[in-house]
C-alpha cells in the first residue's frame, strides 16, 4: 500500500512541470507502460496476501485510471497550448494585394453576338454566316433595289476590282445581302439570323465607321403577319435588354420590305420621362424619348419570289439589328472607332 502511495506522489510530482507532448509520452511509458510502475505493482499482486489482495487490486485500478485521465487531461491542455503557439506564429497574409488572374478578352461585338445567338437559338432560329464580298445581285437586285437607286452609288459602296472587268463584286453594305441565298438554300418555312460585317464607303469619325456589324433575321412561314412581327420584336428585344421594353413601329421605307418599319424603343436612359428642367427626353434620344433601333418589315413579295418562295402560301418578316450600335449602347462606348482600333486596353469590358 505504501508503494502505491509512493507511486502516486511521484506521479504528481513528475507531471507538474511537463510542457510538451514528448515529455508527456515519457511519463506515460514510465507509469502506464507494459513495464511501467503501475504494471509492476499489478504484476506483483499475486504476492499480496489474499485478504488484502482485493482491496489492493481495487486501489491499483483506481490509481491507474486516475493517472491515465490525468495524462489525458494534461495532453489536451498541451495540444491546445501548442496549437495556440503555432497559430500565433503564422504569418498574416494580405488579401488586399492587387493580384489578378491573367485573363484574355473577347471583343465587345463578340459578346453581343454570343448573347443574341443564344437568345435566337432558344427561339428556334438557325445561325448562319455569310461572305463579305458579294455580288450586285445579292446586295441589291435580289432585294428589290432598282438599278439607279442611290444605295448603289460609288460613294456608298466599296466595289472590288475584277480582272474579267464584268460585274465587280462588292463588300456587302448590309447583312440583308444574305437573304436571297438563305431562302434558296433552305426554302420555307425558315427562321434564321445572320450576323456579319458590313461596309460603307464613308469617312470615319466618332460616330461613323466604314466597317461595322449588323445582324439580320428572317422568319418565313404560312400566315406570318404584321401582328406577329410586333409581338416577336417586343419579346426578342425584352430578352436582349433583359427587361420589358416598350416598342413602337413607325412607317419606314426600305425597298426590300413592304410594309416597312422603323422600330423605336423607349429610351433606356431617360425612359421618355421629362427631366427636372421640364425638357422631354435626354440627349441620347435627342429629346424624343425614343431610340431608333431596328429597321424591319414584311419581306417584299419580289424578294420572296427572287428567293424561290411561294408568295401565295408564305409570308415573312425581316429585321436588321445594328450590332455595333447595340454594343455602343450596352457598353457605353463613346467612339465607334474603338471597335476596329486594335487597342487591347480599350477593348476590355469591365464591370
Amino acid at each position: 500500500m505504501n508503494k502505491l502511495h509512493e507511486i502516486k506522489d511521484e506521479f504528481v510530482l513528475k507531471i507538474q512541470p511537463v510542457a510538451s507532448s514528448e515529455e508527456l509520452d515519457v511519463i506515460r511509458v514510465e507509469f502506464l507502460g507494459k513495464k511501467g510502475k503501475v504494471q509492476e505493482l499489478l504484476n506483483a499482486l499475486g504476492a499480496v496476501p489474499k485478504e488484502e489482495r482485493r482491496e489492493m487490486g481495487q486501489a491499483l485500478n483506481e490509481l491507474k485510471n486516475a493517472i491515465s485521465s490525468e495524462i489525458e487531461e494534461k495532453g489536451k491542455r498541451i495540444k491546445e497550448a501548442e496549437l495556440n503557439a503555432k497559430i500565433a506564429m503564422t504569418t498574416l497574409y494580405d488579401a488586399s494585394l492587387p493580384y489578378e488572374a491573367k485573363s484574355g478578352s473577347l471583343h465587345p461585338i463578340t459578346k453581343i453576338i454570343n448573347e443574341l445567338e443564344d437568345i435566337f437559338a432558344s427561339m428556334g432560329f438557325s445561325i448562319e454566316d455569310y461572305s463579305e464580298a458579294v455580288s450586285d445581285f445579292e446586295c441589291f437586285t435580289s432585294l428589290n433595289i432598282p438599278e439607279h437607286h442611290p444605295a448603289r452609288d460609288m460613294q456608298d459602296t466599296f466595289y472590288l476590282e475584277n480582272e474579267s472587268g464584268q460585274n465587280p463584286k462588292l463588300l456587302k453594305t448590309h447583312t440583308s445581302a444574305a437573304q436571297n441565298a438563305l431562302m434558296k438554300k433552305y426554302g420555307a418555312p425558315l427562321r434564321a439570323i445572320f450576323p456579319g460585317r458590313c461596309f460603307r464607303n464613308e469617312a470615319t469619325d466618332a460616330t461613323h465607321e466604314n466597317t461595322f456589324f449588323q445582324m439580320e433575321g428572317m422568319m418565313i412561314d404560312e400566315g406570318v403577319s404584321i401582328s406577329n412581327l410586333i409581338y416577336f420584336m417586343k419579346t426578342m428585344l425584352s430578352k436582349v435588354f433583359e427587361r420589358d421594353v416598350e416598342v413602337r413601329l413607325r412607317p419606314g421605307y426600305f425597298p426590300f420590305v413592304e410594309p416597312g418599319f422603323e422600330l423605336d424603343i423607349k429610351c433606356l436612359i431617360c425612359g421618355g420621362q421629362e427631366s427636372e428642367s421640364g425638357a422631354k427626353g435626354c440627349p441620347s434620344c435627342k429629346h424624343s424619348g425614343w431610340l431608333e433601333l431596328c429597321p424591319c418589315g414584311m419581306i417584299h413579295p419580289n424578294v420572296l419570289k427572287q428567293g424561290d418562295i411561294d408568295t401565295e402560301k408564305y409570308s415573312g418578316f425581316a429585321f436588321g439589328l445594328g450590332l455595333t450600335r447595340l454594343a455602343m449602347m450596352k457598353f457605353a462606348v463613346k467612339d465607334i472607332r474603338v471597335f476596329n482600333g486594335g487597342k487591347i486596353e480599350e477593348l476590355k469590358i469591365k464591370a
Partner: protein
Amino acid sequence: MKISINWLKDFVDIKGNEIEKLLENFTLRVAEIDDVEYVGKNINNIVVGEIVECEKAPNSKKLSLCKVDVGEKTPLDIVCGAMNARKGLKTAIALEGAVLGDLTIKPTTVAGHPSFGMCCGADELGIGHSDGIIELSEQDLTIGGKPVKNGTDIKKVLSIEDVVFEIDNKSVTNRPDMWGMFGVAREVAAILGKPLKDFKKEKLPTKSETEIKVCEGVHRYSCLTIENIKSASEVEREIEDKNNLALGSSFKLQTPNTMKIRMHYVGQRSINLLADLTNYVMLEVGQPMHAFEKGHIGKLSVQNGFEGEFSTLDNTRRNIEKGMMMIMSDSLPVAVAGVIGGLDSATKSETNAIVLESATFCPVSVRKTSNKLGVRTDSSSRFEKTLDPELTLQAIARFVFLLKEICPSIKIDNLIDNHVKKYDEVKLNLTKDYIDRITGIDIKKEKISSILLSLGFGVKFNETKKSFEVKVPSWRRTKDISIKEDIIEEISRIYGYDNFIASPPSLSMQNAECKMQNDGQINSYVSQSSRLVRRIKDILVDKFSMHEIHNYIWQDAKKLKKLGIEIEPNIRIQNAQNSENDTLRKTIVSSLLPVVYENRFFNDEFGVFEIGRIFDREDGEIKEEMSLGCVLFSKKKKEKDLFLEATKIIKCILGDTKGINPHFVLDSEATFKKEYEHPKNFYIVCTEDEPVGILNLVHPNVKDEIDKNASIVCFELYFNAFGTKEKAKEKIAEVSKYPQMTFDLTLIMNKNIMFCDVENAWANAGINSLRKVDIIDIYEKEGSRESSVTLRFHFSLMERNLTQEEVNASMEKVRERLIERGVRF
C-alpha cells in the same frame, strides 16, 4: 423638309387637335419628324402703327424723327434708322415692354432725341430678312373686308406665331407626293379623318399649237407666257399719270408678307416676287417651276447635246457635259433641266413678262447631272423622287391664281404642253382575307375604305368576292405603289401600328437547322461555323488568356511599312478613300502584327487573335475564306518556350473542336513565304491528310521593329481546311483498375533530329501496354549540338497486373529502336 402648320391650315382644319399629339401621330403614321419649333411665341406688345410725320434728324444721314399713330390719342415719338421710313407707311411698332431677342423696349433717347418705341424690320421679328422696316400692305391690313385700325396687335395682321416641324427627308424618299405642303396636308387630313381642301387655281387657256422639241428624259414640259405683270397700284397710277411713266418704276412689286413669312419659316429666302412665287408654288404643290425673263427667251427646246460653260443663277460658271439635259432658247442654254436656272434669263424685281416653266424630268438623269455638277437644289431633290407629271399644269394654274391676286391685269398666253411619259392607270384587287392575313388583325371594311379614300385612292368593294378594287391616284403611281402589299401598308399605317394587337407567331415550324440535318445536308461549315468559332474564341480567351481583336479587312500600308513590310499584292477596292488601304488582306496575321506593335507596351506578355475573312484570287474569281490568326508576344519567355506554347494552342484548338492531333511539318524551303515569316522556323500545320495552317516565328527584321527584346510567334489556321472536317467520334477514356508502372528515360538527341522522327520508336512498336509518354524535361546546354530529353513512359494492362520484367522488356525494345534512330542515352 420644313412644314408650317399655318400653311397646312389652308388645306385641312386641325382645330381641336393638340399640336403635339398631332405630330406624334404624324411620326407614327407618316414619317419621322426631326425637330419642332414653336416660332413667334415671344412676340408681344407689337402693334400696327402709321408714320404720320417723318423728318430727317438734323446732323444725321440715317436717322428719321417719326411721329407714329399707334391708336392712342397722341402719336408716339420714335427715332428710326431705316431708309424706308416715310410718311404714310404702316409698319410694326414695338411698344414699351416688348422683348425682341436681347433687347427690351423702353423710353430712351437716340442721338439726343426722345424715342418711345421701335419700328421693326422682319429680322427683328424673326420673320425674314430685310434692309428696312416692315411695310404693311393694304392686303395685310384688311381682315374680313374691314380695314385694321392702328394699334392692332401685329399678330392679328401677320401670322407670326406658327409651329414649324421638320420631316426627316430620308423617310420620304419614296414619296414624291410628300414634297409639298399640300401632300403633307393630305396625310394630316387622313390621320384626322378631315376633308382636304383643294388649292385655288386659275383657269388656264387652251393649249396652243406651238410644239416644243424635247429630248429623251423629259416626261412632260409645260410652259406659259405671262405678260403685263404690274401691281394694281402701279396700274392705277399709270392711268392717272399717263404722261409720267418715270414715276411708275418706283412701284416695286412686293411679295405679300404672309407668303414671305411662311417661306422664311420653312427656310426659303425671299428674292423677288416672281422668283418667290415659283418657290411658293413648289413648296406648296411640290412641283418645281422656273420663271424666265421673257425678253431672253426665243424658241424653247430641251436638249442633251450641249457642251461648254454656262453661268447659273448662283453666279457660278459651270462645265456642262454632253448628256446633261439643258433647256435651250434657240441655240443658247438657259437652264440646267430640273437642277438650276441660268443667270442671264433670271427674273429681276422689275421683270414684267415671263415664260413660266413647269416640267417633269427623268429622276435618274437629274440625279446624275446634279451629282456631276455638285449642285443639289430644292428642285433637283424633288425631281429625283419621280414626280407626278399631272402636276405641271396644276402648278401653273396655281401660280397664275396667286399672281393675279397681286397683279390683276396680267395677260396669259401661249400655253405649251408636251406630255411625253404617261403612266398607266394602276388598279389593284385585294381581298379582305388577304389584308387580314398580312396584317394579322381584323380591320373593318368600312375603315379600310375610308382610309383609302382619304388618301385619294378610288375604292370599290365587291360584296360577293369580299374584295376591294383600289385605284391608285396619279401622285402615288409613279413608283411608290404598284402591288397589293403597298395598299396594305397604306391601310395599316393610317389605322395605326399602335392600334395593332400583337400576337405570337404559330410555332408549327421546324427549326431550319433541324430540318437541314434531317435532309442530311450538312455539307458546309457555314451553319456549323458559329458554334466552332465561338468554341475557339472561348478556348483562346479562357484557356490561353488571349485578346480578341477586330481589324479592317484591307491591309494598312502605313502601319505595315512601320514594320518594314510591304503590302502583299491582292484584290483591290476600286473606290477606296485612300490608296494606302485599298488592298484586301491575304492573312489575318498581316493585320495582327501592327496590332502587336501598337500594344507592345500593354504588357510583357500577351497574345492577340482574330477570326475573320481573308481574300485571294483563284482562277480569276475572288476567293474568300474564314481564318484564325494568332500572334504571341513575350518579353518573359524564351523564344523556344513561346514557340512550343503556340504548338500547344494549336493542338488544343484542333483536338478540342475536331479531335485532330496535328503534326507540324518543317518547310524552311517553302517558296510561298510572306515577308514577315521566319526563313527557317516555318512549319506547315497538318492533319493526317492535308495542311490546315501555318506556324512560324516572326521574321527577325519585323520582330526587331516591334521589339528587340521580345519573342514573337504567329500562326494561322484556315477554316476551309479544318472547319469542314467531321469531328472524330468521342468516347470516354477507360482506365485500368491495376496499378500503372512508369519508367523514366533520358534521350540524348542531336538537335537536328525532330521529336516526331523518334516518336515512332515507341508509337509504332506494337507495345499494347504502353498508355502514354510524357515529356518531363528538355535540357539544352548552350553551345552543345545535342539536347537531352527526359521522357516518362506509362504502362498498364486493362485485365491484369504488369510485371517489372514485362516493362523492362518493352523498354528494351524502345531503346533498341531509339538507337536505330540515332539516339544516345
